[in-house]
């Protein structure tokens, strides 16, 4: 596969260069010991291709001949005014430009519809809350505070993890992908545990002075980080707040 690609790249070189050095370059490629070396040679062939078309040897030959005429070490200048590229060079250059343009367009279309997942080191922003605490203390929190957390959070992980956080009746609830909606119990700070669970919890991390937040969901020992995506419509504010 790599060899075929290398042959294609050589094929696009100017005829004069290819007929002279193509076979030798291929013999060097065949002598490459590893795939890493072959990939490096492919990259080199791309640069060589660009170099050969950017400054064809006809230019350089003329410049070299002009350089021979310099006198007393003074710099020799050469003008390309009378140079006319051959029709085959123009066709090959146009084809190459069209191929590059198509490749760039296809790449931009592909990345538009396929977000690139960049794995990042997990950073523990908040200490794991003490989940063994009793759930008897299950306070209601003012809705104007809770509504800041409500919204849809999405992870860039290929699994397509999505968590929907809702604020209802002074408490938060979360529904993650493929799992039922579960009410959250406030533990401390901005950490909440899943009602009735001693292992599952969530916490919010603020990346500026204001919402939205980053959500960290830990279920059965697996933690996923999700970024705020969309705010849910906040319910009507409560007039009176009850605490247990």
């Amino acid at each position, binding site marked *: 596969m790599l060899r075929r690609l290398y042959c294609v790249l050589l094929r696009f070189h100017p005829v004069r260069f290819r007929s*002279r*050095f193509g*076979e*030798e370059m291929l013999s060097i*490629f065949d002598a490459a010991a590893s795939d890493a070396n072959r990939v490096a040679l492919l990259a*080199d062939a791309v*640069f*060589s291709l660009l170099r050969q078309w950017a400054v064809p040897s006809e230019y*350089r030959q003329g410049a070299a001949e002009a350089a021979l005429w310099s006198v007393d070490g003074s710099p020799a200048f050469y003008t390309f005014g009378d140079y006319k590229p051959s029709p085959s060079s123009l066709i090959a250059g146009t084809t190459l430009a069209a191929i590059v343009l198509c490749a760039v367009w296809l790449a931009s279309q592909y990345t538009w519809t396929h977000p690139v997942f960049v794995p990042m080191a997990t950073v523990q922003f908040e200490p794991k809350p003490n989940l063994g605490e009793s759930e008897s203390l299950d306070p209601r929190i003012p809705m104007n505070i809770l509504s800041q957390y409500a919204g849809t959070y999405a992870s860039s992980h290929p699994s397509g993890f999505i968590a929907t956080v809702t604020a209802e009746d002074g408490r938060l609830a979360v529904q993650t992908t493929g799992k039922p909606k579960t009410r959250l119990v406030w533990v401390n700070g901005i950490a909440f545990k899943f009602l009735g669970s001693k292992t599952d919890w969530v916490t919010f991390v603020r990346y500026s002075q204001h919402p939205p937040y980053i959500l960290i969901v830990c279920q059965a020992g697996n933690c996923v980080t999700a970024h705020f995506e969309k705010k849910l419509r906040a319910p009507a504010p409560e007039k009176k707040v009850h605490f247990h």
Partner: protein
Amino acid sequence: MKENLSAFLPLSPAALHILSSLAGEDLHGYAIMQQVRRQSGGQYKLSPGTLYDNLQKLVERRLVQELGHKPGDDDPRRRYYRLSTLGRAVLAAEMDRLEKVLREARLRLQPAKPRRA
């Protein structure tokens, strides 16, 4: 002749390495790459694209001669190259030029002597 030689100078690093690698014996492209790597202590690695681009220029400027295939070589696709008389003279002129540059640089690097009051 000397005036003509100055038109080729200064040589690019790749051209200098290629000419100096061919100074000892006739070599094919892959052997030139290996020789350049060896003589630079692994610091200068010539890629095939750069090598053949420079070889093309050097052949066109008649500093290097193309010998063609050598009977008995493992790979019949390899072509051998030889440093021409003009190439040898240009290499010698470039070495003279570099020696002057080095001498000048060494002189300037020496600590300045204190002036008498």
